């Protein structure tokens, strides 16, 4: 088991040796502390946390995600520096750029193509849930999230794409 701690990364564990479960690298955009704690306490997740969409977009730009696909090996000698992520989880309402704006922006720039994008909300809204699925968002969870369900869902969505 390997733990790598670095700026912006709460935990980075490649493979859980005991269970052989895959570790999922999550970009979480939002400010729900209890959700961050939930993820960071579960060894199947490693989390990059950005508090809103604008900060996340800056982080994406600064990390050359747009050129990442073509130059993956050249850019990242060390695997643990590799910014590749398995899923994006984003709170619906964020200052500056809400989840839909953020989703559309990364889609427009073709960053993270095929990576599951999941929206979190504090209050269930039937219309909003329908809007999510109609817009191509991969899932919609009400907080607090069942972490086992989230893990299984990301695995399914990743294999689907």
């Amino acid at each position, binding site marked *: 088991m390997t733990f790598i701690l670095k700026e912006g990364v709460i935990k980075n564990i490649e493979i859980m040796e005991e269970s052989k479960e895959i570790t999922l690298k999550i970009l979480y955009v939002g400010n729900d502390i209890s959700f961050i704690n939930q993820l960071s306490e579960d060894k199947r997740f490693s989390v990059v946390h950005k508090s809103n969409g604008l900060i996340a977009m800056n982080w994406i730009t600064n990390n050359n995600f747009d050129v990442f696909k073509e130059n993956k090996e050249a850019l990242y000698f060390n695997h643990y520096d590799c910014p590749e992520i398995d899923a994006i989880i984003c709170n619906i309402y964020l200052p500056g750029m809400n989840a839909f704006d953020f989703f559309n922006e990364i889609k427009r720039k073709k960053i993270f193509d095929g990576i599951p994008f999941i929206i979190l909300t504090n209050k*269930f809204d*039937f219309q909003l849930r329908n809007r*999510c*699925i109609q817009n191509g968002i991969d899932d919609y969870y009400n907080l607090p999230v*069942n972490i086992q*369900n989230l893990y*299984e869902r990301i695995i399914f969505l990743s294999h*689907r794409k």
Partner: protein
Amino acid sequence: MKKILAIDDEKSIRFIIENTFNKDFDIVTMSNGKEALYWMQAGNIPDLIICDIEMPVMDGFEFIKKIRSSGFFDDIPLIMLSGKEESKDKIKCFEMGADDYIIKPFNPKELIARIKRRLQSRDIYLERRGN
């Protein structure tokens, strides 16, 4: 008209369901759980799902697990169809998240009655949640 998704690998069952239910419901049929999940993920959320247990590619148990782990689909009423009468299979389905269990061969009128009751309950639930 309420949309019902029926999943069964047996053509004869799909035929019975389509022809019995098409007056009352907008009915869509699929032959396995994976096909159904992909269809749902493409933006189609049914009001209720009827699902066989023993199917190729993705069986009913795996299907329950997959939809109940999703925030999109976790509250859709789910009725399981099975040729198995054993209590352990019924219990497993309910524990995994199924709402009802019907043994094949079934009386289509009984299935329709159960579907209508489930849909009424769901409407009341959604109305009270303010949706």
